[in-house]
């Protein structure tokens, strides 16, 4: 069971109050992009054993979308942060580094 803190309403709740929204920080490619970019955007996802970034929605709560950084192996949550960002803020990256030195995920480290 995951315990997530919503960065918008400040509630700390277990995962059934939220709904998972898949991988975070995808770069969207539209109809004008190359076939390779479009395919990657639609189908290629990370499937890490360890540090992962996801989107979640506080569906049975304030209704807002948020981001979560967590470990798929231990279910440890490194932190949650707002959805209006293209990459994890520094304090989230620092929190991950403190627990998983040398971590990388797509282009982030």
């Amino acid at each position, binding site marked *: 069971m995951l315990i997530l803190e919503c960065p*918008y*309403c*400040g509630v700390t*709740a*277990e995962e059934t*109050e939220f709904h998972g929204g898949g991988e975070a920080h995808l770069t969207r490619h539209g109809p004008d992009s190359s076939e390779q970019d479009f395919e990657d955007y639609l189908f290629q996802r990370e499937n890490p054993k360890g540090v992962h970034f996801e989107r979640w929605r506080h*569906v049975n709560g*304030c209704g807002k979308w948020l981001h979560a950084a967590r470990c798929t192996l231990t279910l440890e949550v490194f932190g949650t942060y707002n959805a209006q960002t293209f990459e994890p803020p520094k304090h989230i990256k620092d929190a991950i580094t403190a627990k998983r030195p040398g971590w990388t995920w797509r282009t982030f480290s």
Partner: protein
Amino acid sequence: MSNAVSALEGAEFNGFAEVREIGLQGMITLRGDLGSKAMAGAVKSATGLKLPELRRIEQAEGQAVAWMSPDELLVMVPYEDVQKTLVALDKALKGTHYMAVDVSDARAVFQVTGPAAGDVIAKLAPIDMGALATGEIRRSRLAQIPAAFWLVGDDTVSGTVQVVCFRSVAQYGFDLLKTAAENGTEVGFLA
């Protein structure tokens, strides 16, 4: 003119706590910039209440304003005062980016009363009811449906808990509360 009725027309159940649908309740969804002066002024002029802080609910006789999300409030007034309140809000917010909509008939409202009222909710929601403070509104779920609840007035979890859910699931919500309040199923945790 049709005769407005609430979802369950005041259904009641008496178990180890009392469950009651409170009947018609005026409710307005108000969205916009909660940090703006115009919004605080609009809430004040329409209800006499101040704009609630994060996850708080301001309550007075017959009126309440609840914080629902960073850009949404729920304004509660007597059912017959909704149009008047909408006019006041529209006037105060004219020219700003906002939305004020009557949702009274889209919701159902219950009260759970008694020393073990908190236990009834705690059976159904994945939250720590013991940590619910007076004046706080908690949006969560009751079994499979979204719901919001708060303590009425200065009550504690051993007083009256007010619950609001969507009207389309009113019967489900009432049946949940009723089953959780059934005599012989007392928990005695928060009571």
